[in-house]
């Protein structure tokens, strides 16, 4: 009797509260973004905000369902759930519908369902399940290979669907491997390489090579000068120099035209304000014009011109920036960071290794979405179309993020029941 009543006492209401705040903020800002005087009712189902309300109500049901299910279900059926969504990911390549250049959609009734969104949750589950096995140690090569395959399989399939944005998100799970014991150099490299790539487009190559050389010399000066260390530094220097010089080739020959344009826009080489640079510039004008207090709810002028095509989905942060100003947008950023930290701290408290690794997975995936989306809107990253978790318009992403978070909340509430 006590246990049953207990579930709702033991839920981390702070996490639920942040979730609700983000979802409601999203809904109101979608309303503001596509606001239309002739359909001014926020419940108007013919409009995006009306549809988002339906999505939100359905998400609440999903959340509730997740909280009722036996938490052991998720750990026991991790691989099954993973396999299930992997199957759908492959299926969608052959029978899916194409929406804005990406093939990853299923049409169910009038809605598009994007399995890639759910695959992130399934991959977190499978990875947590694998890492939580007692005999698995990520420092062993064979275990590292299997863990990497669990991440790479869906990444590759999503990439084949031409959904580069979603594919990149899977790399976030490296943070889970890092927590499980993977060498810190791996996540460091994953962060440094793109930065180096962007730098090599911005800064003259010889100058950059010079900087690398100076850094290598400084490193040589400070380390214990044993042959092995010296060799490693020389190798790293040569590899990064090679990388710097191969970036041009990669950008020009491997990336597709629209991806290339987006990168050139980022580094300021292409001032094409009607093409690829247009969105980012519009986005910055909108956010910048919000100043400190913002123009007020529904008072935005820039975002309302509909000049940014993905106003309610990928560029929703513009509306917040314009109408809520520095105050509102920085509050949102802080709220997100607080959410991520809370999940990490909570994950550390878990007694079950499964729940802990899963928690890290949740935090990493949400964080990557947050970082890439806002980074793009603020003109710091190339335009990569992925949604802002809980805030952007769209059923698939909202439901997938809700499941992702609430499975963790459910695991967390169970922590107390284990006693």
């Amino acid at each position, binding site marked *: 009797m006590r246990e049953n009543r207990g579930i709702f006492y033991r839920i981390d209401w702070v996490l639920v509260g942040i979730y609700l705040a983000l979802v409601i903020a999203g809904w109101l800002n979608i309303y503001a973004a596509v606001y239309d005087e002739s359909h001014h009712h926020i419940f108007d189902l013919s409009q995006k905000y009306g549809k988002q309300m339906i999505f939100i109500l359905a998400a609440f049901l999903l959340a509730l369902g997740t909280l009722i299910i036996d938490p052991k279900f998720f750990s026991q059926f991790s691989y099954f759930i993973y396999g299930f969504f992997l199957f759908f990911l492959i299926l969608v390549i052959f029978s899916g519908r194409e929406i804005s250049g990406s093939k990853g959609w299923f049409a169910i009734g009038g809605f598009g369902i994007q399995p890639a969104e759910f695959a992130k949750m399934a991959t977190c589950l499978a990875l947590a399940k694998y890492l939580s096995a007692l005999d698995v140690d990520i420092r062993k090569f064979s275990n590292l290979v299997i863990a990497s395959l669990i991440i790479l399989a869906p990444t590759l399939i999503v990439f084949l669907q031409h959904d580069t944005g979603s594919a990149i998100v899977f790399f976030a799970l490296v943070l889970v491997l890092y927590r*499980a014991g993977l060498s*810190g150099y791996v996540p460091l490299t994953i962060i440094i390489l793109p930065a180096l790539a962007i730098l090599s487009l911005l800064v003259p190559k010889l100058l950059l090579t010079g900087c690398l050389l100076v850094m290598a010399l400084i490193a040589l000066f400070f380390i214990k000068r044993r042959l092995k260390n010296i060799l490693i530094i020389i190798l790293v220097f040569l590899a990064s120099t090679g990388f710097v010089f191969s970036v041009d080739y990669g950008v020009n020959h491997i990336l597709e035209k629209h991806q290339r344009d987006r990168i050139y826009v980022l580094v300021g080489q292409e001032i094409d304000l*009607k093409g690829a640079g247009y969105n980012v510039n519009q986005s910055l004008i909108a956010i910048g*014009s919000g100043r400190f207090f913002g123009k007020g709810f529904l008072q935005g*002028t820039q975002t309302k011109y509909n000049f940014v095509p993905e106003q309610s989905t990928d560029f929703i942060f513009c509306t917040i920036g314009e109408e809520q100003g520095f105050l509102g*947008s*920085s509050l949102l*950023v802080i709220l997100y*960071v607080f959410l991520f930290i809370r999940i990490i701290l909570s994950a550390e408290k878990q007694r079950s290794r499964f729940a802990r690794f899963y928690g890290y997975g949740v935090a990493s995936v949400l964080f990557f979405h947050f970082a890439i989306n806002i980074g793009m809107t603020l003109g710091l990253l190339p335009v990569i179309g992925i949604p802002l978790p809980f805030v952007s318009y769209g059923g698939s992403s909202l439901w997938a993020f809700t499941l992702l978070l609430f499975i963790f909340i459910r695991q967390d509430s169970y922590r107390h029941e284990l006693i």
Partner: protein
Amino acid sequence: MERVLANRKYIIIGFFALIGFFFLVRLFYVQILVDKYILSANNNVLRYMTQYPARGLIFDRFGKLLVYNEAAYDLMVIPRQVKKPDTAALCELIGIDKQEFIRRLEKARNYSPYRPSIFEAQITRENYGYLEEKLFRFPGFFVQLRTLRKYTYSVAAHTLGYIGEAGPDLIAKNSYYKSGDYIGISGIEKSYEEVLRGKKGMKIRVFDVLNRDKGSFREGKYDTTSVAGIDLFSSMDADLQLYGEQLMTNKKGSIVAIEPSTGEILCIVSSPSYDPNLLVGNIRKKNYTLLLQDTVFNPLFNRALMASYPPGSTFKLVDALIGQQEGVLTPETRYSCPGGFPIGNGKVVACHAHPSPLDLAGGIQISCNTYFCRVFKSIMDNKSYVNTRAAFEHWRKLALSFGFGKKLGIDIPNELNGNIPTAAYYDKYHGKNRWRAMTIISLGIGQGEIGITPVQLANLACLIANKGWFYTPHIIRAIGRKDSLNQAFMTKKIVSVDASYFDVVIEGMANVVTAGTARGAQIDSITVCGKTGTAQNPHGKNHSIFIAFAPRENPRIAISVVCENAGFGATWAAPIASLMIEKYLKRKVTRKDLEERMINGNLINGKVPGNEREQRDILQD
């Protein structure tokens, strides 16, 4: 160890916090520190003004301007910025009533309250001056410079095509187009849209709440200039086109003329036609509806590309070529004609009276039905194939290499395939293995299920003139630079018949004009090679067909003429073709009597002389 790993949470949390902090700094920079992205505080509005490029011009083959642009102005509205308008005054300015004003504003609002929509399109230069002075009183309204398409000669409406506003479906599909943009809807305007349209530019200007222009946003740093469209150099001869349209006055049908050595189209006449200047600017919608509703003359229908006729006796040329290629026919093959060809069950494909027996050139010259029924039968009964079906399949393959049965791929939209029936079709119609040469013998004289478009007919004349090859016919010879060549039409198409088999056919065609069925097509000092034909028309009087090329050596023009309901091929189509050839090769026509008779001939509602001989038409050509 686990303790140490647990400490990694600090690194991860630190990383999350660092990125968050980085975003806060960036937000502070963008929103507070720099003016770069900020509009001045009193809520000024940016207006994104599209800079429309001038559309490319179109010239004829001698450099005459066919299509050009004229300045016009669109009155635009941004519904959300419309503030308590002095409705009556504005209505008066543009000559509409209050209800219409409300209707248009509502329509614009439905498209978008925040983006400009066209309120009144294509205001002329005079009216614009008057409007411009008063416009400051109407916030939310402004004027945008546009251009109006104009056609120097009122010819070639089907070929040149017209432009119109991009519709909502297209805007949803293609992100280049926004409401109010113009797009080519038919003809060259459509097929070369991406070349002609140029590149739009964008000017961002700041307006205050009183609709006053406060200048460029950030000194025009974000403005982009428009790039004018690229000019097209057509292979059309405007004089010949005009002359063809005159000749086809009051007739239904088409004329297609091609330069054999290049595949360049010299003219395409589809009659009845209309004045292209009718479909320009704000009169377009009204006139288009009128043209569309004219179901008697169907002026919008491009017969040259979209009508498909049984080619009649012109197809005997194809029999002659395929028969030789298949080895069942030589120039010396002689068949006698007893006045018809019996096809069983007491039925006979009739022929007219002529000397008999004839060789191949004679068969073409006299257009003997018996001769070509026998040729076709020998192609189908060829012992090299296991059965009729296999022989037919091969015949069809050769026929397709002539450019029949599928679109030629010319650079004018809406071309039709025509039809060469398939073996599967006959299997279905007669039953498998239940059809023989005799069942489908009408194909041999170009009747029955076979359908060929006028442009395919002209191309037939072309490929015979070239002795076995052609370039895909095209109307645009150069893009951008007059002396460049249209790279899309540089591949030679080879017909699956050896060049040596063409000489006897050309000999026969020359005799058609000098001593055969089309003596009316003779021109002094020019050897015209031609062939008459009559297309059976189950709905009325038969269609008159003539194809020809000239001169015999180094041909410079190949032509097809179709006159619907004109009966015998030699009476209308052949003289018209002959006048066209004379006009093109000599630049002036001396046979004024014939010219006058052809121009004045009314085949639509007038009485055609000598049309009682309906049934004999087919027999005679």
